[in-house]
């Protein structure tokens, strides 16, 4: 289980070099945008979309961060022992995706330092930015405490398993003694932490739903169900990402013995149900917008279904439905020939579709305002793509740094 910690292959150096180049290009693009403004990202408040690819990216990253503590908390609260090897894989998704989302938020507002200082200095309770800053700060700090406390035992044991870093691990374990009493105390506290973090987790993506849902001036956004709709989307993209990452780690390090198929099968089953609910919400939304809605809503419905966003919308729906049926048939009709590959492919298709759907939530409404501004156009520029790729590179870099330092699967579980 500590192969990633003790061994470093050529693939790691190649990936590290690729991430370094991507991050360097991201820093250059970010500095260019800060100095020259949003003209470089193609975003405009006069004619065109004020929000584009970056806000879609923010919503996606916040959504993926949902799953981490969600899976870990569910495993602990519902005693789902078969999911235990996957909990730290999921927790790290939260830890890497939240800061990546914050980086994306900072770049989206154009002047990060002004944004942070203004929100902290002059924020009002009725501002969605304040809600966003609150829930992200509380969720991230809670997740860090949760991860550290669940990792503490393994850090202490790593001092024996990796002697050349024993000093570091002993320092990080902060006096942890691997005794039955200590373990039980940690388990009790972690149980209560899991219980407290779950509603905070739900609130994080609810806030992002409300950021859109409370904007009465934007057709397609003003909707009382945006909060649960976004939470559902977060669960779908979060679980899909967890399946992808777990399958990748399982294949890369040959952990078939530790990451058993039954967990991926059950994760796939849960994902298929959540995807079905998401498709239901989607159909309800499209029907409401198309049937007898106000003119502005019908315009959004037209551009999505038959207008200039149709070439993006329909392939996204095909991906979503295909991914769902892959999972559905893999779990039911062909359950005796269950395939992790098909579950992973289904999760990938669903994740791509959800990313595109976030883009389609943000941009069409931005291009068709209620107020009589001239209608412009928008397409993501190279700078915006660079920043988006930079946020993913940042998340992946932190994840593999963790893999090199700490065990991604609980050591005491893998010994059983």
């Amino acid at each position, binding site marked *: 289980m500590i192969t990633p910690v003790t061994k470093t292959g050529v693939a790691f150096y190649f990936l590290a070099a690729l991430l370094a180049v991507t991050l360097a290009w991201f820093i250059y693009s970010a500095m260019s945008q800060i100095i020259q403004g949003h003209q470089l990202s193609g975003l405009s408040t006069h004619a065109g979309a004020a929000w584009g690819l970056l806000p879609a990216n923010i919503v996606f990253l916040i959504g993926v961060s949902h799953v981490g503590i969600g899976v870990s908390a569910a495993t602990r609260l519902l005693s789902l022992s078969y999911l235990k090897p996957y909990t730290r894989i999921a927790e790290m998704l939260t830890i890497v995706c939240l800061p990546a989302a914050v980086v994306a938020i900072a770049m989206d507002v154009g002047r990060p330092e002004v944004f942070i200082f203004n*929100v*902290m*200095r*002059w*924020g*009002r*309770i009725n501002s969605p930015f*304040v809600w966003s*800053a*609150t829930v992200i*700060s*509380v969720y991230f*700090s*809670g997740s860090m*405490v949760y991860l550290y*406390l669940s990792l503490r035992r393994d850090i202490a044991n790593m001092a024996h398993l990796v002697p050349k870093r024993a000093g570091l691990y002993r320092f990080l374990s*902060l*006096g942890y003694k691997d005794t039955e009493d*200590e373990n039980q*105390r*940690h388990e009790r*506290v972690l149980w*209560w*932490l899991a219980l407290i973090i779950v509603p905070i987790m739900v609130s994080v993506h609810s806030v992002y739903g409300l950021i859109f849902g409370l904007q009465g001036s934007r057709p397609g956004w003003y909707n009382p169900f945006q909060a649960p709709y976004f939470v559902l989307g977060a669960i779908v993209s979060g679980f899909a990402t967890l399946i992808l990452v777990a399958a990748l780690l399982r294949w890369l390090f040959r952990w078939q013995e530790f990451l058993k198929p039954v967990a991926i099968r059950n994760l796939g089953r849960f994902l298929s149900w959540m995807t079905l609910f998401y498709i239901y919400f989607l159909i309800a939304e499209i029907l409401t917008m198309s049937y007898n809605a106000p003119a502005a809503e019908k315009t959004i419905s037209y551009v999505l279904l038959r207008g200039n966003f149709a070439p993006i919308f329909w392939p996204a729906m095909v991906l979503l439905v295909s991914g769902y049926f892959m999972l559905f048939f893999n779990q039911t009709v062909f359950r005796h020939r269950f395939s992790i590959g098909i579950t992973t492919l289904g999760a990938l298709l669903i994740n791509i579709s959800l990313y595109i759907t976030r883009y389609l939530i943000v941009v069409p409404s931005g291009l068709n305002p209620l107020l009589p501004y001239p209608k412009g156009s928008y397409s993501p520029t190279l700078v915006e793509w660079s920043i988006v790729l930079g946020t993913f590179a940042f998340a992946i870099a932190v994840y593999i740094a963790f893999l090199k330092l700490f065990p991604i699967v609980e050591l005491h579980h893998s010994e059983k």
Partner: protein
Amino acid sequence: MEQGVVVAKERPAVRVKPYLIFSNVVISATLTIAGLLGMIFTNRVAGVIYEWSTLVWILGLVSFWLIPLEILFIKPSR
């Protein structure tokens, strides 16, 4: 006391642990409420802290997470 029996003295940290946790709760709640009032009220008297009230509010909420660390880190030595 029987001859030869030595009673171990409790570490000072363990004795003050309940007071530490209670203080943490009080300070965190104070910061949270002060920050919230500062964000709601613009009056410099009613809004206890006017500027930086969002930071104070977030610090108050985040500092609650120190409590599980205090519960687990402060323990009697065996």
